[in-house]
């Protein structure tokens, strides 16, 4: 049974048999541990059914409100600077 461990961490004997342990203590099975019909863990969807990029939303939600506002100001001022440099075009 294959077991991959992150350096410096003890094997998680009481977790999923085989697999590897991440800092959060989650044990992921390696492919050699999986039954032939098993699927790898599903990643969260990257787009909603109506086409919204959920990765951007998750990233933005991970910021504080102050960081979000700063990001908006930086974006807007960047666009204004580019507009100014291209005035007359």
């Amino acid at each position, binding site marked *: 049974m294959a077991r991959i461990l992150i350096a410096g961490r003890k094997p998680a004997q009481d977790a999923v048999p085989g697999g590897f342990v991440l800092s959060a203590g989650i044990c992921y099975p390696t492919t050699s541990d999986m039954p032939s019909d098993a699927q790898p863990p599903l990643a969260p969807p990257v787009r909603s059914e109506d086409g919204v*990029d959920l990765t951007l939303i998750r990233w933005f939600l991970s910021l504080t409100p102050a960081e979000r506002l700063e990001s908006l100001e930086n974006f807007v*001022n960047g666009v204004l600077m580019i507009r100014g440099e291209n005035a007359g075009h």
Partner: protein
Amino acid sequence: MPAIEFLSILRTLADYGVDHIVAGGVAAVLEGAPVNTFDLDLVHSTSPANIERLLPALAALDAYYRTQPERRLRPEASHLASPGHQLLVTRFGPLDLLGSIGRGHTYQDLLPRTVELAAGAGLRVRVLALEALIAIKEETAGEKDLAVLPILRRTLEEKNRGKIKKPWT
């Protein structure tokens, strides 16, 4: 167009004790929706006392109507007491002061549907909650609103899933 500093506008209004609610795109951003906007929409209290505080704050911001910038017309108390929209430009960027939004929602109506958030540099601001923002955009349903609504709805879903810890709220 001056460099846009939404935080500086909010700071000035706070310094003068102006009662207001952040709405529109900046509210969406503060609530975590990855959208962009070039103006700051605020629903202000139209009470006489608040307008007395708002007028000197607008003078400090050098606010005037951006519809006719060459005339540099400044908002007066009677304008600010109306339910209409005052489209201004300040030394920190465009500012829309809204006496009401959607189907006539005023500052007092909206107050229970707000959250208080830290906007940076120690400033706390009252922001229209994402649920209310969506409901009001659905009411008005202009083309611009329709374009942004899917992003707001999906942001609310992601927030409600509770996967993202929010120690700052």
